[in-house]
Every structure is written in structure tokens, then in C-alpha cells.
């Protein structure tokens, strides 16, 4: 049946209306490739980013094999410092180390980390809100209650970040997240390098998180942004982002090793006091 001009016009109008009502896909349709553009979302984009805890990635690595998590635990002996930026970064690092110790089901390591959490939160002036969680970690370690320890580490980190944000110190809160992400990612690269596969390496495809950290540093107050450790982290993250964006056909073992090396070097910088 031959379509009338009116029908053609109506169909064209309807299609145009549909495309203009869906700007997320309009540009993509013109290019012939359907790509989602979150920037063109016709609503409100929530800026807050929830950074995954290391155990989210670790649980996938467990499903893909049986990593030797005990081999991944690093001794925690952090230097004393009055530098709040370093303390916040160290706090994130220590909590992430806690997730490694939980994965390894190592009671003594968890207890050591629990004590380190107490020391760092005391130095940060946040012991009052952290102590119940730290105590719960120590109690649960005695019982080998791993799921509860995991929950308490997550709560501890949230409590510290919330307290920092209540004190209008969002920059410090971001440092906690960054320290944790760097330590978690260093563990992932270590496990993946030891037993390389494309599926394991794909876990490093996290450009949005790295962009989020770079943007967070960029928004920091000058005294924090120019802190030597933070400025090193910004440089290191840019290098990591390049590696992630360059892994169009997947990560090579070398790229994984390079990301791990960068994380390790930044973590060393966090743990050094002048």
C-alpha cells in the first residue's frame, strides 16, 4: 500500500520528536553508532560517586581462581605524622589492607589493622566515632566472623568520611577514598600479574573512578592540591587513566604491571614522612 504524504509527514514528525526527546541517543543515531552520552541525560545527574570497596573486586578474583591472599597482605607499620592529608590517605590505605586481610582470613593481620585504625583515627581526632567499629572489628576477628569484619571496615570508612564532610573537610574525605582505591588496585594488579588472564585484567577497567579522583584533586583547596603527595597522586592517576583508556582491546600484562608499579610508588609516597 502506497503511503500518503500525510502519513510520511506524520512518521517523520514522530521520529524527529522521538529523537529530540531522547538527546542521549540523538547524536549517536546521526553517527550511525548507538552510543550513550550521559552528559546529555535529560534529567539531573547526581555528582556523588560511590567508590567500590576492594572486596567487590576481590570477590570476582576469587570466582576466577583461588588467589593466595595471604601473599598479598603487607605489614602495616605506618609512621607517626601530624600531616592530616597523609593521615587521611593512610587511613584509606589501612582500611583497604583490612579488606585484603579479610580475604586472606588472617585473624592476626585483621587485629593489627584494627589497632592501626584506632591509632590513625585518634591522630585524626575521630576516635570517638570510630572506636565502636574498631572494637567490633577486633571482636569479630576473634570469632573469625569475616562477613561482619568486612561490614565494619566499610562502616569505619564511611564514618570517617562522613565526619570529615560534616567538618566541611571534603578534601580529606576524598583522600581516604584515594588511599583505599590505590591499595585495593595495587592488590588487584599483583593478583592479576601472578595469574594473568583477560577476564582478570578487565577488572582494571575503572576510568570513571580515576577521572573522579583526578577531578576531586583538581577541586581541592590550593594548600591540599599542592601538597607533594597529592600532587604526585594526581600525576600518577593521569598515567593510570592513560593506560586504562589505551586498553581498547583489553589490558596487556605489561599494562597491568605498569598500573601496579604506579600504585605501589604512590603508596610508598603516602607512607613516607619527612
Amino acid at each position, binding site marked *: 500500500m502506497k503511503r500518503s504524504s500525510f502519513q510520511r509527514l506524520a512518521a517523520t514528525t514522530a521520529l524527529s520528536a522521538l529523537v529530540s526527546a531522547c538527546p542521549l541517543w540523538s547524536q549517536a543515531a546521526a553517527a550511525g553508532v548507538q552510543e550513550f552520552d550521559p552528559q546529555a541525560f535529560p534529567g539531573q545527574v*547526581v555528582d556523588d560517586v*560511590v567508590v567500590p570497596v576492594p572486596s567487590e573486586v576481590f570477590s570476582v578474583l576469587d570466582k576466577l581462581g583461588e588467589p593466595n591472599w595471604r601473599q598479598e597482605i603487607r605489614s602495616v607499620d605506618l609512621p607517626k605524622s601530624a600531616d592530616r592529608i597523609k593521615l587521611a590517605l593512610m587511613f584509606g590505605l589501612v582500611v583497604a589492607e583490612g579488606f585484603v586481610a579479610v580475604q586472606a582470613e588472617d585473624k592476626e593481620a585483621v587485629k593489627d589493622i584494627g589497632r592501626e585504625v584506632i591509632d590513625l583515627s585518634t591522630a585524626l581526632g575521630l576516635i570517638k566515632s570510630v572506636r565502636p567499629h574498631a572494637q567490633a572489628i577486633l571482636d569479630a576477628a576473634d570469632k573469625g566472623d569475616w562477613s561482619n569484619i568486612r561490614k565494619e571496615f566499610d562502616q569505619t570508612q564511611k564514618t570517617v568520611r562522613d565526619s570529615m564532610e560534616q567538618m566541611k573537610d571534603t578534601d580529606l574525605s576524598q583522600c581516604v577514598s584515594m588511599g583505599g582505591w590505590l591499595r585495593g588496585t595495587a592488590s588487584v594488579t599483583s593478583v592479576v600479574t601472578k595469574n594473568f588472564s583477560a577476564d582478570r585484567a*578487565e577488572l582494571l577497567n575503572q576510568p570513571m573512578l580515576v577521572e573522579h579522583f583526578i577531578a576531586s584533586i583538581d577541586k581541592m583547596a590550593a594548600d591540599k592540591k599542592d601538597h607533594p603527595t597529592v600532587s604526585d597522586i594526581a600525576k600518577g592517576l593521569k598515567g593510570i587513566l592513560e593506560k586504562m583508556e589505551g586498553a581498547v582491546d583489553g589490558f596487556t600484562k605489561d599494562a597491568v604491571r605498569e598500573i601496579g608499579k604506579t600504585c605501589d610508588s604512590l603508596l610508598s609516597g603516602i607512607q613516607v614522612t619527612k
Partner: protein
Amino acid sequence: MHLSARLTRRAALLTAASLLALTPLSHATIDDAHTFAMEAASPFVQQGFIVREDYWNGEVKSGQKLMVRHQMFKGNEYAFWLGTAQEDVSFELKVLDETGKEIALDYKSSQMYCSIRVNPPKTGTYSVVFSVTSKKEKGVYWALAYGYR
């Protein structure tokens, strides 16, 4: 004169007391939204999901579409729980991949919350799109939490 002043003072006190009584309720509503999101999470916890302590929340115009960008890892199963503090609402909750394709499974809703499950086909960034539409209120409180297993 004195009586009138006393009455005015009493009225002012009553108004202040009513406002004070209302204030904690309005403060409680975002927490209530999270409580309902956690209620939605409860059956998932029994199925082995680990609930994250961090979550998104806020107050928004009824029906306003919101989006959060979230990192997910292939190999994990995720669940998202959207809760609100308002009654008589309808929900929208979906997860889109980088091509804009919906990938969520098992949408379920109740009076105060809804949930979906996701098995991400790839490790990467996904968009969680949602809205809460109230039949009575202009603004709604919401909380979006997630868990994984």
C-alpha cells in the same frame, strides 16, 4: 490587654512548639528513605548479597529523572534498592550500559521501595536511572543503595 498579650504569647509558643515538633520529622525523611531502601535489601541479604554502607540520597522534585554513574565488575551480581519516605508514589529504576541498553533484571516494587538486579556483561561504568513520582507531594526524599555477591 494582659490577657491578649498572654494569648498572643501562647499562640506564638504553640506555633514554635509545632514547628519544633515538625523539624525532626523533616530531618528524618532522608533517613526514612534509606531505611526503606534497606528494607528492600533485606531479602537480598538472605540470598548472600553484601550491602554497601555508602549510598546516594537527596530530595528532588516529584517525577524528576535522576542518574548516578557507577562502576561495576563483571562476575559480580549487583542489586540496587531505591527507597522513599513518601507514600502513594510510583518508581522508575533501570540500569543502562554504555550503549544506553537496559541491562537490569527482576524489577520489583512495593509501596515505599523498589529493587532491580544486574549481572554486568562487562567491567566498567554503568548508569543507574531512576525517579520517584508522588501523587500528593511536590518534592520527594530518596535513597539509592546497592549490594553485590
